[in-house]
Structures are given as structure tokens and as C-alpha cells.
């Protein structure tokens, strides 16, 4: 098997004839923190939606550990070990923080079909293990005090933490973060940076879209820059930062554009 856990090969995605992603290729190494940057509307989130099965690209291949996963339904992608967060936070707002994180345990839970009707000793063991894991994650993300609070009642920064805890609860191999620092203050961003390092230390590969350049440059090991759906630059953070093509793409764009 190759050293790359995820390979994107010449992927194109169209919406009503318009190109959202154009012949995009990239390779993510196991254990890496991989950054994707680019102006708003460049197709970054569309790429994540293609990887996680929400969209099926018209052209190209998406290889997960060497196997094609293009066109696989989202829930099966998650079962493969690819978990994500959302740019616009998508929590189960009325449900408690603990219950939100418990959703990440879904694919790890070994309950049988009849356990929805009748409980068995194996059910109680499984249920306890999963709730304990939720407890560990709440402790890791400093969420324990909000265990019973509806997720929708909490601040933006806390909601972002819940989303990451939820994705991590599924014990992913690849964690995809869509603008994790958006809406966070300086302290929260610093905390997030440390958290992502800890996640990497657990052996999880991380792919992230982020606009906070300071964070991206300090955290990621490899960056791909996208503009108008196509790759315009790629390399180590130091290289990308000084690439004239990248500088031009950013100056020539409006930061406040609507996201896709």
C-alpha cells in the first residue's frame, strides 16, 4: 500500500454545467495535517463534499487507502473512517451535548437489530462503553459541564468543539475540518491549534480548510491552494506563502464573498 491514505486524482465536479472543481489532484499522507486554502467560493467545501460522498464528482478518482470511494454514500464513507465537521455548524441543536457526541459512537456501537426493542447483557455493556467514551471526549474538549445542555443553546466556539468531539467519537482515521477556526476569538483559536496537534498525536490524519493564515501556516505540513476550482499552488507552507500566484489570487479576491 502506498504511503498516501487519500489520493484525489483529476477530480472534476460540475453544477449545471458550471465548473466547481476542475481537474483537481492531491495526495494526503497518513498522519499528516493537510491544509487547503483559497479565496471564498474556490470550491474547497465542494471538494470536502466530494470526499465525504455528499456529492459525486463527474470525473476523476478518489482513492481511500488505494480503493476507489467515489460515489459511495456518506454513511459508508463514515464507516470507512472518514469523519468531518461542517463550515456552517450542523449539530442536533435540541439534543444535549452528550447525545450529540454519542452520535459519533454510532458506527462503533455493536448493538444488534433487536436491541432497539429488547435489551440484552451485551447491549448494556456496549451502551456503557460508548457513554464512557463520550465522557472521555467531553473531558478532552472541556465540555463536561455542558453534558445535559442543548447544543444549540451554547456559544459558537463551544459548538465548534462539540462538532469536533462528535467526529472524533467515531475514532476516525481521517478527520476533515471545514474552517474550524471560523468565528473563534484569538484564545479559542490558540486552544484549537493545540487540540488539533493532540488529535494528530493520536494518529489521526487531519485535512482542513482554514482562512486563518497564521493558524494554517503554523499547523499544516502541506498545503494545496485552490482558486476557481483548480489547484494553483501546492507545497510546504513556507513555499505557498511566498508563491506569487497565491498572493495574486488573494489580493484579487473579495474576502467577504458568500461561501459556496
Amino acid at each position, binding site marked *: 500500500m502506498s504511503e498516501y491514505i487519500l489520493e484525489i486524482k483529476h477530480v472534476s465536479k460540475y453544477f449545471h454545467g458550471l465548473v466547481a472543481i476542475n481537474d483537481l489532484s492531491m495526495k494526503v499522507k497518513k498522519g499528516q495535517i493537510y491544509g487547503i486554502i483559497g479565496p471564498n467560493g474556490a470550491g474547497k467545501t465542494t471538494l470536502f463534499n466530494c470526499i465525504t460522498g455528499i456529492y459525486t464528482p463527474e470525473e476523476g478518482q478518489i482513492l481511500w487507502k488505494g480503493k476507489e470511494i467515489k460515489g459511495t454514500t456518506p454513511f459508508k464513507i463514515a464507516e470507512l473512517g472518514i469523519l468531518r465537521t461542517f463550515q456552517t455548524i450542523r449539530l442536533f441543536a435540541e439534543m444535549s451535548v452528550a447525545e450529540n457526541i454519542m452520535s459519533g459512537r454510532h458506527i462503533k456501537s455493536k448493538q444488534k*437489530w433487536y436491541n432497539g426493542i429488547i435489551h440484552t447483557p451485551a447491549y448494556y455493556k456496549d451502551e456503557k462503553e460508548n457513554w464512557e467514551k463520550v465522557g472521555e471526549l467531553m473531558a478532552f474538549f472541556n465540555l463536561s459541564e455542558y453534558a445535559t445542555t442543548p447544543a444549540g443553546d451554547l456559544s459558537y466556539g463551544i459548538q465548534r468543539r462539540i462538532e469536533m468531539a462528535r467526529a472524533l467519537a467515531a475514532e476516525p482515521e481521517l478527520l476533515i475540518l471545514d474552517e474550524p477556526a471560523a468565528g473563534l476569538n484569538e484564545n479559542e483559536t490558540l486552544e484549537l491549534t493545540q487540540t488539533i496537534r493532540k488529535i494528530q498525536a493520536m494518529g489521526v490524519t487531519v485535512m482542513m480548510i482554514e482562512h486563518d493564515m497564521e493558524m494554517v501556516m503554523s499547523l499544516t505540513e502541506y498545503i494545496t491552494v485552490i482558486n476557481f476550482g483548480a489547484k494553483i499552488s501546492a507545497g510546504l507552507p513556507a513555499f505557498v506563502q511566498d508563491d506569487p500566484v497565491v498572493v495574486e489570487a488573494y489580493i484579487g479576491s473579495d474576502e467577504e464573498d458568500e461561501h459556496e
Partner: protein
Amino acid sequence: MMNKTSLIALALLVFMGFYPLFVDSAWLAVGTTFLVFSVVAFSQDIILGRAGVFHMGHAMFFGMGAYTTAILNVHFGWPILATWAPSVLIPMAFAFVLAGPIIHLRGDYLLVATIGFNIIFIQVLENDVFGLTGGPNGIFGIDIVRLFGIEFASQTYMYYMAFILLGIALFIMRNLDKSKFGRAMFYINKDEIAAQSMGISIRYYKLYAFIVGAGIAGAAGSMFSVQYSAVSPEAFNVTQSIMFFTIVLVGGSASLPGVLIGTFIMFVLPEVFREFETARYLVFGLAMILTMILRPRGIWPVKFGDIPSYLKKGVK
């Protein structure tokens, strides 16, 4: 440790347990039907309140259970006890076959499709298919439950049988809510995209809800047919489906006390105000409208956050 809800539940249980001692036969029958309808409403709530599927044909599964018992007993001479299993399994099988092709439809489209199924079901009953369903008049002369030479014929027996059935239904609902399956339904209901991204198969869990819901409704149907010793199509038509749908929304989706309150308001109160005849329905129409405006999540809304106590230790 008893909280307020458990105390109310206990008081209600005691009241319901002794209810037959205080009432005449007409009110006893109302009580029995209330119990049976509560079971149907709970099963509707699995599909509508938990999985969030806008299913407006639930009287069909209720009717399938009722007609299964009626047909097997009257036409084939099966004892009532022997018809219980098929009256649960046949609606489940139909739920699987019928819901399968429509389960991917979005709320309003699916709602229309389920109404369509319900209408076809009534047509089948009224046309006396294979000479089994008895046409518009239905089937008469359904036997009583007999076990070890005891004949469970009186309305009091009927009441307690329905009481036990409700207990079983509540037991299942509680188990469902505390399992991966119940939670998956809630996640799908609240946000399908997020649920899928957590590895939850939307199709699987919506179908699961349909099949379990149909099975419970079928059991209630079997009880219903024995209580009245007859079945006829109008008890299972779209109007009835609308009633079960409304019970859930008015009482409170996915809320066990809510659904009981909903059944009480939608079924028992009209019986209480019978002397006002059709004028009472004006009040109910208004009550439904006002509930939706003032309490859009129902009279007794569901409360989340029922997590193991050791996880609540850090809560301030």
C-alpha cells in the same frame, strides 16, 4: 429517587389500573379504546416523532392487524391467541414492502404517498378481496380470547388486556429511546446530512421505524377487533390516520406523556362532550390550531438530555 414525571406516571398508572372499578360499561369501553388508540399513537410516534417521517397512513397498519385477526379467526377458525403473531408480522412485512420504495421521498411527497396507500387499503377492504375482507360491512363475530378454558369475554378483561398491551408498548418505546436505534432516528430527524456524516444510514433507520411502528399498530389492531368483535373499513381510513398524526403533534412528538395527553384530548374529550354533538368538533379544530401556534412542539414536549448519571457529575 422519584422526580415529578415519575410521580405523575405512577399516579396515572394506579388510576388506570383501578379505572374499571368506578365506571359503567360504556365508559369502560371508552377506556379500553383509549388504551388501544394510545398504543397506535405511540407506534405512529416512532415513525413521525422519532424518525421524523411524515407518515399519514398509519390507520392502515392498525387495520391490517385488525383484519388479520378477523380473517384468520372468522374464515379459518384460528383461535385469537394464534392470530396475535401474524397480526404483528403481516403489518411489519407490508411496512417493509410499501415503505421501501417511498422512504427516500422528502416530507410532503412522502405524506401524499402514504395517504395514497391508505386509500388503496380501504378500497381493498371495501371490495371484499378474495371474499375475505367482507366488503363495506366488514367482518362480524370475532371470537374472544380463550386460554386454559377461561373465557376472557367481559369488557373488564378487554380493558386489562389493552392495559397490558400499552405496558408492552411503553416498554418497547423506552428500550428504543435508550438504544442506538432510537438515537439514530432522532439524529436523522434533526439533521439528515449530519446524521449521514456520522455513519448513520437514513434508509435503514427510517425503514426500521416503519417496521417496528407497523408491528405495534398491528398488535393494537388485533386487540381492537377482539374488543368490538367486529371490524369494518371506516375505522381505518385516512381520517383515522389524520387523527393519529394529529395526536402526536398536538401532544408532543417523541414525548411519552405528550402522546398520552394527545390521545386523551383527541379521543376521550370528544366522548366526554358527546352531548354537544358535532359542535364539539369546532372546539377541537380550534384547539389543534391554537396548540400549533402557541406550543408548536406539543402540549408536553420531549425533553432530551437523559444521559447516564455518571456523565452528569461535571454539570454545574
